[in-house]
């Protein structure tokens, strides 16, 4: 039995104990008072028809029985697999409690010596009350426990779902990284070889005489195409799949992204010391999926600024507050927030941000253009 189950069972016993004790006390006090009132009201006691019993004696006997039953329910150990055994044990305890009550009443002189047959009647009524109280306690405890289990399974399910999402994203990133590595390595290498082969043919051709001018020209063009494909195409696709720096740290990933913005655009970047310190590459506290999200966010903001906003200046600020919420602010000097902002790219990002507890906002910025500000909580993950 693990710890959670142990506390669960302790709680179950406590609920069942109080659930049995309270009705039993109500019965006991009620019955004692009723006998007392009945004697006074009927006035029969004065005629000696009914034996005059002091109230305290009945109370003591009844409360003792209630306490015995409650204590038994509280103290008898229970495990889910041996529930029937437990029920039998507490039922016997209840019976014992009721018999003890009868014995106490006899000892305290509740019954007239001429009417000892009443003892058995009282025991039967007591048994009914005791078992009823016990049933109330058990039913109550069962209901509470079911509610607790339900709640726990719901939260466990939510946890499982988010863990599955995390695993899925991590796996996606791993595949991206592998494909990017393949592109950088194998594909680029093969293209180098193809280029070298072409160059070889070209060299041989230029030595020979009867070569069509246009063929040489096409070969040269082809070789240049392959070089371009290798230098730019393959590298850019690799970059798209798995941006450089994502495996190192948030600041590094952001810096790599910023350095790729063409030099004709003014870029002011401020990566706060707190961010560098938090995602220190030696500790790598920020998951790669979040780093990738930050890069995507910046890419979206920058390309929106350049494509739709005609911006010539971009200011990027990365900061973090004491609650370890990362803030990303991108300002541009473009045409500003359009009347009908194109949220196609941002919609997907907003969704991703939502799923990690972040937020995104598009407003007018101090540079005259748009300001995109986003937050991503990094702590307590």
């Amino acid at each position, binding site marked *: 039995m693990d710890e959670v189950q142990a506390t669960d069972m302790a709680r179950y016993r406590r609920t069942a104990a109080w659930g049995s004790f309270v009705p039993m006390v109500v019965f006991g006090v009620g019955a004692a008072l009723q006998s007392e009132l009945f004697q006074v009201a009927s006035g029969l006691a004065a005629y000696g028809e009914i034996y005059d019993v002091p109230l305290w004696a009945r109370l003591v006997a009844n409360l003792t029985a209630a306490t015995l039953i409650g204590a038994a329910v509280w103290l008898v150990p229970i495990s889910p697999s041996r529930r029937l055994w437990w029920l039998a044990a507490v039922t016997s305890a209840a019976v014992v409690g009721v018999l003890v009550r009868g014995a106490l009443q006899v000892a305290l002189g509740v019954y007239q010596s001429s009417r000892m047959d009443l003892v058995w009647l009282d025991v039967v009524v007591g048994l009914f009350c005791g078992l009823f109280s016990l049933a109330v306690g058990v039913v109550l405890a069962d209901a509470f426990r079911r509610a607790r289990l339900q709640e726990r399974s719901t939260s466990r399910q939510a946890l499982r779902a988010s863990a599955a999402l995390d695993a899925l994203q991590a796996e996606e990133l791993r595949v991206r990284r592998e494909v990017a590595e393949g592109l*950088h390595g194998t594909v680029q290498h093969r293209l180098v070889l193809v280029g070298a082969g072409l160059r070889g043919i070209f060299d041989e051709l230029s030595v020979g005489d009867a070569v069509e001018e246009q063929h040489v020209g096409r070969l040269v063009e082809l070789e240049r195409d392959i070089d371009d494909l290798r230098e730019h195409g393959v590298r850019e696709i690799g970059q798209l799949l798995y941006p450089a720096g994502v495996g190192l740290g948030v600041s*590094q990933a952001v810096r790599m992204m910023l*350095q*790729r913005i*063409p030099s004709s655009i003014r870029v002011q970047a401020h990566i706060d*010391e707190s961010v*560098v310190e938090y995602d220190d590459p030696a500790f790598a506290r920020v998951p790669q999926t979040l780093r990738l999200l930050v890069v995507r966010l910046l890419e979206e903001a920058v390309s929106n600024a350049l494509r739709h906003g005609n911006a010539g200046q971009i200011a990027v600020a990365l900061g973090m507050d004491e609650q370890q919420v990362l803030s990303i602010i991108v300002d541009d000097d473009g045409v500003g927030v359009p009347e009908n902002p194109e949220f196609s790219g941002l919609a997907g990002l907003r969704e991703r941000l939502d799923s990690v507890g972040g937020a995104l906002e598009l407003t007018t910025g101090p540079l005259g253009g748009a300001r995109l500000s986003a937050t991503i909580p990094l702590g307590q993950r």
Partner: protein
Amino acid sequence: MVTRRELPIPAAPVARRLTRQATRPVWGHHPHRAPRALRHTCGVTASPSSKTRIAVVEDQPLYREMIAATLGQRPEIEVVVTADGARQGRELITAGSADVAVLDVDLADGNGLALGIQLRRADPAIGILLLSAQDVMGVLLDLPADVRRGWSYLSKSSALSTDSLVAAIQATAAGGTVLDPELLHRARPREGSAVSQLSQRQYEVLQSVAQGDSNAVVAGRLGIAVRSVEAHLGMIYAALNIPEGQNARVTAVLRLLEETARG
């Protein structure tokens, strides 16, 4: 085309070694006092005959062996450790065992940047030279504050000569920062930045300095007098608003990295 370069003359790197040593715990809470006190002793200890001890961490066996073999043949270099990954690197490169760690950034079991930071924290005197196939030279800009100086970067896809690799290792050992020549060549000054305001000549001087060249080498490369190089450097510091001092050279190199873009 790779031009063969002379080995850096210790004059400038020694000044930078002082910079880095100033952060060593030897001087406790008064690091700014240290350089003056040590100016003489340093000149003596930096004997050109002493070998630079290097550790190589590279996960591709062929590349690792090639680096180790090529560098091992050089009289000025001693390869003291070779490791196949981050974990082995952490185990084998103990504090004081190497002057420079040559680290591949993309390791199978981690990355060279994290390893370099860990090594530097364990040994504040070790220089770190990063190698990478992918262009991640910008990592030098956002290093944690406690390990910021004495990092260099070379690209694996650049056509590097052994001479330039040795030169970069020695400059790094001396606390300097060396950037990859080919990547520097591809870089363009960013619009509106202070670096874009430099004159053509000043830009060339800074580019050469960023490759780890001493003033004499810069002078030889550009065909100007060493004095002119010094004058240019003074103007560069002024233009970039860098206070002159031991850190100025490295700071200027990092500004060049920060304020340029590589397509």
